[in-house]
């Protein structure tokens, strides 16, 4: 059964369509790569899914509901940017998550922070950009959500940090949950993907399991991506 359903989903910014009639079902318990070049509509699709954007036309359904308090309670979202209040300390942002999300595991968050050597007493404004990204990842992955939307989680970080981020995602997402990872760095994520969705100019070009893609095309997902999106 699909946990995420997009029906004729369209988003237009000032007469320019960012998404154009997307129809897609994403089943539960899958790690899905939302793959496309910059400006292809990946972030728009995720923002529509988490309720940060209002569709121009069409619908998004998460776990049978349109985006709202019910879907937000079961959806974990990691944006490209830092979305935490700089004045808060790490421990107060942990309490903030614990206050609002019933599925948030405070102990798990503190364990992960301790493994990373991050002092919970420090305020976010005193942390480096990379450390803030790690804190944000810890917060998101400490939730037992039904759907994780991770927008470009490995963009702009060094290969060692990419490994850490991907390992953290794989080890910590709750069973039966769907993880949607948007990226254009296919090579780094290919091994963890169950499914791949290629998106270009706001339209779905391909949506299939990673195994089928490899079997049918005789290429890796990364190779096919380079071929499909060749400039």
């Amino acid at each position, binding site marked *: 059964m699909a946990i995420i359903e997009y029906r004729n989903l369209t988003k237009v910014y000032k007469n320019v369509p960012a998404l154009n009639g997307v129809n897609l079902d994403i089943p539960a318990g899958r790690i899905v790569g939302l793959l496309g070049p910059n400006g292809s509509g990946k972030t728009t699709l995720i*923002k529509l899914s*988490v*309720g*940060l*954007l*209002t569709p121009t036309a069409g619908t998004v359904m998460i776990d049978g509901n349109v985006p*709202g*308090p*019910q879907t*937000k*309670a079961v*959806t974990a*979202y990691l*944006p490209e*940017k*830092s*979305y*935490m*209040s700089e*004045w808060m300390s790490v421990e107060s942002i942990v309490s*903030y998550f614990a*206050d*609002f*999300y019933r599925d948030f595991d405070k102990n798990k968050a503190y364990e992960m922070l301790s493994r990373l050597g991050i002092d919970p007493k420090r305020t976010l404004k005193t942390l480096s950009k990379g450390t803030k990204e790690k804190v944000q990842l810890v917060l998101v992955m400490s939730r037992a959500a039904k759907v994780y939307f991770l927008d470009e989680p490995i963009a702009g970080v060094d290969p060692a940090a990419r490994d850490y981020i991907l390992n953290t995602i794989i080890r910590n997402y709750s069973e039966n949950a769907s993880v949607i990872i948007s990226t254009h760095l296919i090579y780094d994520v290919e091994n963890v993907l169950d499914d791949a969705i290629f998106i270009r100019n706001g339209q779905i070009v391909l949506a299939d399991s990673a195994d089928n893609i490899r079997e049918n095309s005789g290429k890796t997902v990364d190779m096919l991506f380079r071929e499909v999106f060749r400039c």
Partner: protein
Amino acid sequence: MLGKLMKYDMKYMARILPWLYLGGIGFSALVTTFILVINNGTVLFLGAYAAYFLFLIAVEGIAVCSSIFMMVRIYRNMFSDEGYLTFTLPVKNGDVLNSKILTGAIWTFFSGIVALIMIALPIGAAIYKVPKLLEADDVSIGMMIESLIQEFSVGLAGNEVKLIIFLVLTVVLIVISAFFAPAFYSFCCAITHKIKRARAFASVAIFIGVSYALGLIISISTVFIEIFSEYYMYGDEGFSAITPTAMIYDASEMSAYFGLRLNIMIIDLLVIGAIMAVITVVSWIVSNRIVNKKLNLL
């Protein structure tokens, strides 16, 4: 969930505003001490005069600072990158807005109380000081203050009901004002939130521009109310029928003059209150609609 949202909004404002309040009350205490300690009427008069202007700056400063913190919180927490977290919390988007407006109103109310304390302390000290000044060598200042108090009591005779209405309306206006700024600024942010660049500037510019325009409209309407009331009460002669100099010698004229002034102030309060209430409610309705149905965080 509204309570939880308010808890964090209150925490944000509580980082700085209580210190500002302490500073304001400390300043007021200093002036009060000055009034209580100094026995020379002329020095006291000049000091009180200087303190009056400093007070205006301090009271206005507290009001402006609390408004700025409230506006920063509304913009950052809802319409900057922080909005990505705020609007993905499992709460109604309208509750996020309501939390900001309620918290802003509560802190504006606190600021009002602090301003009252700041003003009440030295006024209390001055009233306490009148008999002492009368006993002192420089009697003129004490007499002046005493005569002012006497004039006020004479003028109020027969106008008690109007005074009560005026005070009640003042409280109502304070409550409306407390909601006005956060509701209207939320509206400014909401209508500009789709702009890609200089969003914060656009929202502040609209807020300041409309607030000044509103101030102008209120000032003009106040002048019209004044002129209208004058002619309504005294015909073509207007206020020349009674002059402040004549009032000093005539208790009934004084009472009539106070009554008219109270009438004018009551009408002013009603007009200002109505304008602000309408803007507050419309701002709240439109902002709610935008965050609930038309949110587009770029």
